[in-house]
């Protein structure tokens, strides 16, 4: 009973904090509202006995939202922590689409005759996940790893101000390097 109430309260917090992201009038507050929503969902995942995944979600999202808050202070045109803002288009249409989506999904959830649980959960869920990852499902992690590396490379290439191609030309043969502030002794 207590678990049920806790689960619903967390669900309510997750939804309300998610709505607050688009309701509050500063981007910094929006970021923290999103972090709160993620923490609530992470705790709900803990309620669903997935300790490892739940903790990963909470830790990762808190860090990610901290980065996001710094990012917005850096790049947005106005002072995002202080200046009220409302930048939406087609708000009413978007609201109608969102409500329609919720009603459709809710109807599906309530009308479908969900089957009963087929297998019993493992005694130690986290241990079972670790053994799965280190055994039969290692390929999944092996595939995710190069994707992550590719993301790092692509992210740096996109976000970098100047790269070696700016300095040495497209064929990397241009010498001396084209730098905004030339160095060396003029030889």
């Amino acid at each position, binding site marked *: 009973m207590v678990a*049920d109430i806790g*689960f619903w309260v967390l*669900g309510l917090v*997750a*939804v309300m904090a*998610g709505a607050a*992201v*688009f309701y509050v009038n500063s*981007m910094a507050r929006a970021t923290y509202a*999103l972090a709160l*929503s*993620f923490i609530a*969902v992470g705790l*709900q*995942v803990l*309620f*669903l*006995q*997935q300790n490892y*995944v739940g903790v*990963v979600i909470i830790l990762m999202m808190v860090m*990610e939202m901290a*980065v*996001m808050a710094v*990012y*917005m202070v850096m*790049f*947005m*045109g106005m002072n995002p922590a202080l200046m009220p803002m409302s930048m*939406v288009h087609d708000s009413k*249409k*978007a*609201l109608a*689409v*969102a409500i329609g*989506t*919720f009603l459709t*999904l*809710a109807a599906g*959830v309530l009308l479908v005759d*969900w089957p009963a649980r*087929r297998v*019993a*959960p*493992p005694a130690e*869920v986290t241990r079972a*996940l670790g*053994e*799965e*990852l280190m055994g039969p*499902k290692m390929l999944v992690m092996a595939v995710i790893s190069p*994707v*992550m590396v590719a*993301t*790092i490379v*692509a*992210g*740096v290439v*996109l*976000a970098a101000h100047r790269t070696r191609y700016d300095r040495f030309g497209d064929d990397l043969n241009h010498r001396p390097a084209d730098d905004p502030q030339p160095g060396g002794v003029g030889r």
Partner: protein
Amino acid sequence: MTLEATLLIAAAIFSVGLYGAISQQVVVMVMMGLELMINAVILAAAGFWWFLAPHPTGQVLLLVIIAAMTVEMAMGFAVATHLHRERHADMTDMATDLSG
């Protein structure tokens, strides 16, 4: 705590994220909407896993979803940084080159 309750909460979070992704003009706010939608997918997947088939394989799928969210976030920030540097643009309406 039932599967229906979990999925209803996930549907509500997904719909809120959808509203944000459609209506917001600032690139970062659109990304926040997408994040909320993936957040809902995580919750729904966790609910399916626990209430229908609690085999460890399902948790691996959850980890893949979380990894996808990380990739989306990192690339989104990189593209937004590039956009800001090249055009001083932070709104989706200022980057419509590929629309239509």
